[in-house]
């Protein structure tokens, strides 16, 4: 269960980073390639190394240049370079796809996977990779070019989901990624010209195992400023821009051949607050329940999301497999909440709500939430800090509530993430047993039951207040088709994109 997450992964799950825009060039019409513009931040630090990259443009680019063993599709693991997994004793064996070639023409073999695992576990990595907590990368055995056996450090019930959740791209045996170099993958597009923080030109790889891609060329543009991304599409310099702010979406697409697209209900980002159960008053389940009964979720959705979203049910993980959407959030009941606070001896207790703007709207929601608590007579205060200090352990330990956004990731990721941090975790025996079972059991029914139990615990005495599910919007030319959501709608999968 010690599945700690790095900053890189945090950013990935939160969907923060340099924005993405894309231009797509269609088959036979060399003048028009889809140009995709991505959402913003840290563009100049973009990297070809799929284990360093951290911006949406990075992900969008690396995920068309490289392939993963398993991808997430509609919340389920989708076999890509792997075709299946066989469970063994303290290890599992991955069967690899036949007939896959690298962009340089050489065949894809098990040694490449072995190298990838050694690479991500190497001590020179800027941050430890989350898979190193599960896999014994030093003891990997290559059985034959199509078969590899990977020993585990703790039981892994669903290795396919583990790989899919970690988003592990496979790199070629011996690959290094010096600045100014290039990247050789197995993905649907080859990397052409690339300049960090500016553009990457991706050209079609006709020999891709999943069938030749549709567009001749895709240009991925990094634009930090959301208005600049939208302007690029509105003026025809790009065909698609991901992660468009709600304020911009409200003004309309800005052209007859343009449309604002929503990624749909299952791709919504869960926005909420986590209560710190290690200190008063939220060490008492009655105080936790009381605050959940006080919050006006609809007001937050209306004012922070401008209506682009719906209210949440206090559980993170919306859109994931095994998510329990039959659970209802406690009904608003101010009198009942006050009675509960009285019982918990929490009347008049100071409440500090910590927030940083690492997802748009975090600080706004915090201020509104604090107003709601104050209106109910609580001594609440917002503590707005910079992103770099947000996770400073000492300050977190002294905070009562903190903002927390989470994309539609597998429940493994969601629950591991909250457990990785003492002040975010709920120290509950039933929850721990259920999550441990869900992680380790290879039995599908047992896993589903375990997740049901874990979510029942969170609904009953949990420390989450998930007030809203935010839409992910994009602005696009109407003829852009085939943009798929794999991991997050903020950096979609462009491997099947084209112009209709």
């Amino acid at each position, binding site marked *: 269960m010690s599945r700690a997450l*790095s900053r890189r992964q945090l950013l990935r799950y939160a969907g923060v980073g340099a924005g993405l825009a894309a231009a797509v060039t269609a088959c036979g019409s060399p003048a028009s390639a889809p140009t995709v513009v991505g959402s913003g*931040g*840290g563009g100049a630090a973009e990297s070809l190394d799929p284990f360093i990259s951290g911006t949406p443009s990075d992900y969008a680019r690396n995920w068309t240049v490289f392939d993963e063993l398993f991808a997430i599709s509609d919340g389920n693991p989708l076999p890509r370079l792997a075709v299946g997994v066989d469970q063994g004793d303290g290890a599992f064996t991955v069967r690899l796809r036949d007939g896959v070639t690298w962009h340089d023409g050489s065949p894809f073999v098990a040694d490449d996977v072995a190298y990838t695992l050694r690479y991500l576990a190497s001590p020179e990595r800027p*941050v430890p990779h989350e898979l190193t907590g599960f896999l014994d990368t030093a003891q990997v055995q290559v059985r034959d070019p199509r078969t590899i056996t990977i020993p585990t450090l703790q039981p892994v019930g669903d290795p396919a989901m583990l790989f899919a959740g970690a988003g592990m791209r496979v790199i070629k045996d011996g690959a290094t990624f010096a600045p100014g170099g290039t990247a050789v993958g197995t993905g649907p597009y080859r990397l052409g010209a690339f300049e960090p*923080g500016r553009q990457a030109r991706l050209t079609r790889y006709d020999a891709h195992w999943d069938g030749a891609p549709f567009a001749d060329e895709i240009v991925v543009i990094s634009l930090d400023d959301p208005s600049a991304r939208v302007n690029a599409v509105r*003026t025809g310099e790009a065909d698609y821009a991901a992660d468009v702010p709600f304020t911009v979406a409200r003004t309309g697409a800005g052209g007859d051949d343009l449309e604002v697209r929503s990624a749909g209900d299952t791709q919504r980002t869960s926005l909420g607050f986590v209560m710190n159960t290690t200190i008063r008053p939220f060490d008492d389940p009655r105080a936790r329940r009381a605050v959940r009964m006080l919050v006006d979720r609809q007001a937050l959705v209306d004012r922070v999301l401008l209506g682009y979203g719906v209210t949440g049910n206090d559980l993170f993980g919306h859109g994931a497999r095994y998510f329990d959407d039959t659970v209802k959030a406690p009904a608003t009941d101010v009198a009942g909440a006050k009675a509960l606070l009285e019982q918990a001896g929490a009347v008049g207790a100071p409440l500090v709500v910590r927030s940083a703007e690492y997802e748009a709207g975090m600080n706004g929601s915090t201020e509104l939430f604090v107003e709601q608590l104050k209106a109910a007579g609580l001594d609440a205060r917002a503590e707005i800090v910079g*992103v770099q200090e947000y*996770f400073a352990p000492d300050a977190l330990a002294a905070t009562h509530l903190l903002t927390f956004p989470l994309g539609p990731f597998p429940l493994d990721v969601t629950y591991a993430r909250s457990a990785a941090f003492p002040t975010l975790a709920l120290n509950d025996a039933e929850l721990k047993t259920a999550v441990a079972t869900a992680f380790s059991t290879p039995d599908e029914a047992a896993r589903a039951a375990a997740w049901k139990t874990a979510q029942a615990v969170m609904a009953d005495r949990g420390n989450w207040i998930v007030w809203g599910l935010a839409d992910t919007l994009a602005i696009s030319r109407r003829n852009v088709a085939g943009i798929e959501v794999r991991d997050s709608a903020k950096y979609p999968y462009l491997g099947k994109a084209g112009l209709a």
Partner: protein
Amino acid sequence: MIRLVAGRLATGAALLVLLSLLVFVGVDLLPGDAANARLGASATPARLAETRQRLGLDRPVLVRYADWAGGLLRGDLGTSVSGTPVSAILGGRVANSALLAGLTTILLVPISLVVGMWAGLRPGSRRDRGVAVASLLFVAAPEFVTAGLLVLVFAIGLGVLPAVSLIPPGAGPLDRPAALVLPVLALLLLHASYAVRMIRATIAATVRAPHVEFARLNGEPPRDVVRHAVLPAVLPVALQVWLLTAAALVGGTVLVERVFGYPGIGEVLVTAVRTGDLPVAQALVMVLGAGVVVALLAADVGVRLSTPTLRTAEQPAPVAFR
């Protein structure tokens, strides 16, 4: 004059050393450090300690400063939180920003002089009042607002210029000059307006001065009056205004760059500050600090050279204003 430049350079160098110390130690005192920024949500106490040790953050701040300053002298700017060398991140971006600032300055000199004279030679006239109002407007509006309006009119409305400065990989902004027009125009409107106001005021005061009136009453043609009596009084002031504007443009392009997605230091600086990428922020502050010191030195020397009494006098030059 050589002694003056050498002295100013020595002062500048001392200032930079002081600045570097302030930046390094000051940043160290802020909450959160590179280990925190790197690890984010995975910053458990044990892992923090391990990362601090690996990054050398557990050593005393002055030892780390000496290390960093030594690297700086060798041209090694350190490594970003993301693991990329800082020099690779800054790379051509400093040059791109300098290009933006340089182009703006070059255009600003003739424009501000001509417009300033055109208005100032007839103080109180309708055109003078018009220039005063327009320049006040552009000085008062933040440059990103001006930039946004320019995009609305020229890119989205008229469709004649690009809304974003997309520079293909391997090319520079000069390979796509259209991408430079709106950013330069946005900067020019703000900074030239400031220069126009300063120059106009000096000219307006000069044309009322006794020696100008004397020349005019003596029947000198207006052109000669301007050339012999007005310009010599205005140029030292104008020169100082231009050089100070150039100094303000070092780092002053950041907001405009963001609006246009221009590949300069703006995006890097904003991101470094937002994500706590201290090595990058520190390197940028040093680059910008050095730029300002050089520009101020040039302003100082320029004013001396263009002012006869200062050129020959022994006493130090007046301190630059603004």
